[in-house]
């Protein structure tokens, strides 16, 4: 579906306000610092990405799954559903919506088990604990919390259109594309329309490649203030990455994370 973004549920319901986002996260942020919270989301974005690649999904499907994941926790505490369960559920739902085809339940579970064991053993010492029935149950909660808004617009297409306008710049496209992928580790997909994220990513790519497209940017009819905000989000992610060793820190972070209680609280 390549419909009109301005009439989409994405624009009308899911471009969130920064203050609302902070308010919704109050509960989790009373336990975790801002940075710890972000590191947990980076970890699970990586997990979704790895799962998706293992399942040979297109990047569009992986990006959609990541946005579902972030949307759920934009409205709910991490304690409501274990992110280790929600992550594969997002992949499962996104692959159906994006017409990739249904991933069989057994393949999904097996892939989760292998990925946890082979690639994320530094985070989880135990094997992947969930089964098909957990995923199916979780899927209903996910769909409900997304308010059935399943079509997600991504920055990839607007990025290609922008590059087509600039002219054949393969290197620039390649780099900007990767910045868009990285942006999924920030909150920008919850806060800004995808075409602005595309412009922000392109801006970063231009700086890295020392390409002067100032006049081209000046002609774009966009709110440059917003673009600068997006750039700041992504650049601060890169800053964080410089000093952050996920392999070393993640176990402690996951231990500190608020968790579901399967029994009624007394």
């Amino acid at each position, binding site marked *: *579906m*390549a*419909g009109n973004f301005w*009439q*989409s*549920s994405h624009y009308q319901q899911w471009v969130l306000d920064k203050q609302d986002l902070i308010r919704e996260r109050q509960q989790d942020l009373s336990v975790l610092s801002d940075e710890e919270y972000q590191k947990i989301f980076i970890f699970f974005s*990586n997990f979704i*990405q*790895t799962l998706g*690649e293992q399942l040979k999904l*297109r*990047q*569009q499907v992986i990006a959609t799954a990541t946005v579902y994941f972030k949307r759920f926790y934009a409205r709910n505490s991490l*304690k*409501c*559903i*274990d992110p280790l*369960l929600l992550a594969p559920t997002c992949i499962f*739902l996104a692959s*159906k*919506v994006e*017409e990739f*085809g*249904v991933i*069989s339940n057994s393949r999904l579970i097996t892939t989760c088990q292998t990925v946890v064991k082979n*690639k994320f053993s530094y985070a989880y010492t135990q094997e992947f604990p969930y089964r098909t029935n*957990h995923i*199916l*149950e979780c*899927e*209903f*909660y996910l*769909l*409900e919390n997304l308010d*059935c*808004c*399943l*079509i997600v617009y991504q920055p*990839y297409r607007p990025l*290609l259109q922008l590059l087509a306008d600039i002219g054949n710049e393969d290197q620039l*496209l*390649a*780099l900007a*594309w*990767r*910045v868009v*992928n*990285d942006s999924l580790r920030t909150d920008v997909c919850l806060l800004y329309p995808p075409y602005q994220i595309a412009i922000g990513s392109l801006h*970063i*790519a231009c700086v*890295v490649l020392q390409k002067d497209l100032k006049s081209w940017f000046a002609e774009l009819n966009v709110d440059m203030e917003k673009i600068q905000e997006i750039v700041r989000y992504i650049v601060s992610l*890169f800053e964080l990455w410089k000093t*952050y060793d*996920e392999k070393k820190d993640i176990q402690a972070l996951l231990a500190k994370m608020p968790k*579901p*209680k*399967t*029994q*009624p*609280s007394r």
Partner: protein
Amino acid sequence: MDFDFKVKTASERAKVEDLFDYEGCKVGRGTYGHVYKARRKDGSDTKDYALKQIEGTGLSMSACREIALLRELRHPNVINLIRVFLSHNDRKVWLLFDYAEHDLWHIIKFHRAAKANKKPVMVPKGMVKSLLYQILDGIHYLHSNWVLHRDLKPANILVMGEGPERGRVKIADMGFARLFNAPLKPLADLDPVVVTFWYRAPELLLGARHYTKAIDIWAIGCIFAELLTSEPIFHCRQEDIKTSNPYHHDQLDRIFNVMGFPLEKDWEDIRKMPEHPTLLKDFKRSNYSNCSLVKYMDRHKIKPDSKSFHLLQKLLLMDPNKRITSEIAMQDPYFQEEPLPTQDVFAGFAIPYPKREFLTDDDQEDKSDKNNTRPNQQNNGGQGGGGQSEQGSSHGHSGPNAKRVRLSHPGGGQQPQAPPDFHQSMMFQRPYPLSSIKYNPSNKRNKDKNKKIYLPMQ
């Protein structure tokens, strides 16, 4: 999953059975599930609603696609999804729509019966034109959003009964069936794709691998012809359908019997069709030398110099590249000639068609089509399709007498491979594994100009 979270969401969740009365009010059933005519229990309005309980449990891919697309689509001629109910206990999915009292399958059936009994039906002169115009309008909206219907047929074209939207066309069940392009996955993983062949474009029957807008247009042409004549134009016995093969000899034979055998100059790319060699082997041009759409429609009293015929001919062009688009079709002189199309297809006159009947649970698996008035009808025992019969057909798929089969692999070929991937991150030392990212820069979407002609509506 957190216990308190479950308790809290359960207490907030609206249940379909608490909000709506629908017991005993089933009006349709089929492979898609069950449709009920429903009313609000609290009486906050007295409108009728259609409640569709999706077949099976959980979220099948077609249910997902249906919810995802309908959540975004909004057009007067496209069915409007009001709300989704998820019933966690039995894992059933319910969709709430406005209720449409009529559909073209029932309307055409009514006309056929009247014709057989030599009883005239009083309908406004421009009704067929109004129906076609609104079908095109709805399809144009879907096409400009790159949603292909893929299964257009009379049963999927609903018409609103008495009420604020009286006589308005609503296209239902779009885009949810899909063609699987490669036998990469076991059949069990896929949703069964259920089809009738009468509305299938010739390129699909010759093995075309992808659905296109032109395929929807062909189906609209078939529906238009059926509205004009009350006969399915490409009616065909469908007993020997090979489920795994798109090529269908009898259906092609029927098309050529009406249209004549396509000339190479009229459809140059026919040579590139996967099943072209089979076509050459199985068919002789000379057998169809006396056939043409002009003659067929003339037999049904549609004159070859009429504007309706001219438009029909453009909708039913064999070469998909030459077939008219919905946008151009809406500007056709046919729609500018009196009587002009009206928003209420009944143009304010009394609606001659009966309301939908309630179905009882007893005739659930009704295998016969005993109430059916169509000739040459075939039974419903579709191969591999489990022989599901459909009744009612509100918001449903094919009409009761269209034979359905599961189509496992009509394309027979592989999906075009996406170009090689881009790397994942711009960070030079990646904190997460390198990935393969596919993108397809050549994947151009059409820019829609949204041109519409102004039509004075009554």
